């Protein structure tokens, strides 16, 4: 009988995440959930719905948009906001919009202005003092050492040398003036945990995670999907229909696809388990500034 009562690893992860979500709601003045529409965000949103059921999660969703996400992401975003009964805030950095910043012409400036600056602007505009993010510690080395409650200065900088110790399940959410907190409720989940949880709980995710025939071009060793007519084809470039899927989702011109036939969730998990490259490999952003790229970005205020 004892056996049937044993909590599985997913039970324990879920309980921990729900505990974190509730602590923030109890102690922060104005929390928000950063929603990027990826699979990690999907799980985080599902956990929030569980944590506060039958109430809707008592905070809005914030999408810091770049206008360059996949169309399928915008569709799921709007659907999930409706279904969860939560307010959806979409923020566009007005300066980036005005200057027409895009990933094709502006390189790293695109991420910097739309995402890093956009996030800071949005948080300041609404005065949110705690923002949930779907980052996981297994994604990247600097994240492995980041706390679940991660404090940011008034200018949104991160000081990795000056983090508060986190003991047991006791979180100190007290802020100094001007500080805000990034909270990572799924810190202890791995990519495989996320997939298993989606599978077990039928969590809705963007169809791009599943293989389908899609128009693609190959550039700098990455397979890019031509998601809309804004994609500037180089002379001689011709979109080719390939059966592809995505392991992570971001701005479509920056997100590499993998060729795949995995059309169902179990097939996707199977492929994930058999693959030999890490999930962030498809993202251009980690490759800046050598191994310390992400750490540097975080100190500057990237989520």
């Amino acid at each position: 009988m004892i056996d049937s009562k044993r909590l599985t690893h997913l039970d324990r992860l879920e309980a921990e995440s729900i505990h974190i979500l509730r602590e923030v709601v109890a102690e922060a003045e104005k929390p928000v959930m950063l929603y990027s529409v990826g699979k990690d965000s999907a799980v985080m949103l599902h956990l929030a719905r569980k944590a506060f059921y039958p109430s809707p999660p008592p905070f809005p969703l914030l999408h810091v948009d770049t206008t360059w996400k996949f169309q399928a992401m915008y569709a799921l975003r709007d659907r999930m906001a409706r279904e969860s009964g939560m307010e959806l805030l979409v923020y566009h950095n007005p300066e980036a919009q005005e200057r027409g910043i895009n990933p094709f012409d502006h390189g790293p400036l695109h991420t910097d202005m739309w995402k890093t600056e956009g996030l800071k602007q949005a948080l300041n505009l609404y005065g949110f003092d705690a923002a949930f993010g779907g980052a996981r510690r297994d994604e990247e080395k600097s994240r492995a050492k980041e706390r679940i409650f991660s404090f940011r200065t008034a200018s949104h900088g991160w000081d990795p040398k000056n983090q508060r110790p986190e003991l047991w399940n006791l979180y100190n959410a007290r802020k100094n003036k001007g500080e805000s907190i990034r909270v990572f409720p799924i810190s202890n989940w791995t990519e495989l945990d996320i997939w298993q949880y989606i599978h077990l709980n039928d969590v809705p995710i963007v169809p791009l995670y599943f293989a389908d025939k899609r128009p693609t071009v190959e550039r700098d060793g990455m397979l890019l999907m031509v998601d809309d007519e804004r994609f500037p084809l180089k002379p001689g470039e011709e979109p080719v229909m390939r059966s592809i899927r995505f392991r992570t989702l971001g701005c479509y011109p920056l997100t590499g696809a993998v060729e795949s036939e995995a059309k169902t969730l179990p097939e996707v998990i199977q492929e994930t388990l058999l693959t030999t490259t890490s999930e962030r490999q498809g993202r251009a952003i980690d490759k800046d500034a050598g191994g310390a790229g992400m750490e540097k970005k975080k100190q500057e205020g990237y989520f």
Partner: protein
Amino acid sequence: MTDTLTKTDEPIYKTDALIAQDIDQYLKVHEHKTMLRFITCGSVDDGKSTLIGRLLYDSKMIFEDQLAALEADSKRVGTQGQEIDFALLVDGLAAEREQGITIDVAYRFFATEKRKFIVADTPGHEQYTRNMVTGASTADLAVILIDARKGVLTQTRRHSYLAHLIGIKNIVLAINKMDLVDYDQAVYDGIVKDYTEFANSIGIKAFTAMPISGFKGDNITGPSDNTPWYKGPALIEHLETVEVDQVSDQEKPFRMAVQWVNRPNLDFRGFSGQIATGTVKVGDAIRVLPSGKTSTVSRIVTLEGDLDEAIAGQSVTLCFADEVDCSRGDVIAASDNPPQAADQFEATIVWMADEEMLPGRPYWLKIGTQTVTATVQQPKYQVNVNTMEHLAAKTLDLNAIGIANLSTDKQIVFEPYDTNRTLGGFILIDKLTNATVAAGMLHFSLRRAQNVHWQATDVTREFHANLKNQKPAVLWFTGLSGAGKSTIANLVEKKLARMNRHTFLLDGDNVRHGLNKDLGFTDADRVENIRRVGEVAKLMTDAGLIVITAFISPFRVERDMVRSMMQPGEFIEVHIDTPLADAEARDVKGLYKKARSGELKNFTGIDSPYEAPQDPEIHIDTTGMSAEQAAEAIVARIIP
């Protein structure tokens, strides 16, 4: 040498064939995995990072692109020559990678068919006691690494003591680098014998020893041909099968700290929290603490539908059959076996801040979902983590561990830490900086809290005040030395006396000749000085007096503490605001001169800070008025 770390290995728990053959079946198996959180203790020299790197590598947690990056990094900054330096995989932040040390707690993940593992990786350096305690607080098990060539070292004792202190019951003694002692059983047996003696002496009842080589892979995933004399489990086998505390927690009485009250509409009121211990069923009788009100559980609500039963570790929402007052910070417990509430305790305290502990200073104490104000007394003793000796201590510095009594401003629901980690483990938070400055573990409540009852007196404070025909108050003067506090306070008292008011002036210098003559001028003593004066002033307001105090009282937190001791409206903070240059130029007692010359230490304004009030009831700018005018202004404010 490098071949042991390349892809020639086929660890038994690596990707199994089932993934390729029948993914649905594979997923079913893996849905029933359990989780084990453990901590690895040891220094870089013990091969800790190499061991963790190997666990990740063997369980396929290192991908090709990461391996390529690792190979490149190893050549650039590695300490293993041209070989792969697994420490680089495990060490995270840029700054410390360059220094070649791990300075913080990092969490790593890997999984086998039976379990998911979360590894807290903490450094072995002495100054990082705080990190190890942090990593250990969530661990089910500790792996203590020993270099077979060196045996039981001071740091082995330290790590074991800390793991035991934080209540880890499963201890693995991994005797590493066996390849470097030719897999000699005698070396292994000698170390086990030494360790057994030590473990017994500090109360560790059981541990599991094993001979391993993280570098060569011996006894990591399966039995090694190099140690035929060792019959015990390999490290992974042990980690996969060892019983976790979670199971024993279920057998304890039910307790859940309320995090959040869920009230979407008038028809629903649920209490959300994570069950600390025990199980709860629909129909169970429960008691809400500290109020003691009882009810029964009517529903256990989740998004997927109601449950009949929930167990320790789960996050749930409970509804009651009756309307019972219950809010964040309360504890819901089995009705027939509830925990106690108290406000005075003995506790172990691990100090985690650069600034030393100040006995008597109020800190926030967070335990479960309760946050209260607590003051810690001077430690009974400090423990030397290397020798386990008890040392006399007046305070606790960074990484110091001490035993001390503490008191809270209201009763908290608790259980001894060794019975219940959730209701016995707490953190202390600095009220000014909001930093987490300490972790602590409650031992027991002091009987005093239960047995000393408030003596109700028939002649009440109202009666005293009416007799004197006045409203009691505390005029709390604060300001730099030489600002004019005593002069102005004296004038205020004279004016009040002429108006037939019953007053009493408590002067800093005078009190230090009597009541507080045992106190010096360290930060800790200043805090205690103000606490005592506050208590005396409080008794005098009970007697109906208008109390005037003249103390530098440099710290905001202590002034706020005294404010919180008084009835609302009775504490009147008077800031005698004189620029430092003016006070120093005046230097009536010649103290600034002494402080400047270094003859006098801890002098406010010179080498000790003054925290000016942010919003005092009365602000006196001495550059714009005489002492007489100031006194006039103050009296006008309090006697309408």
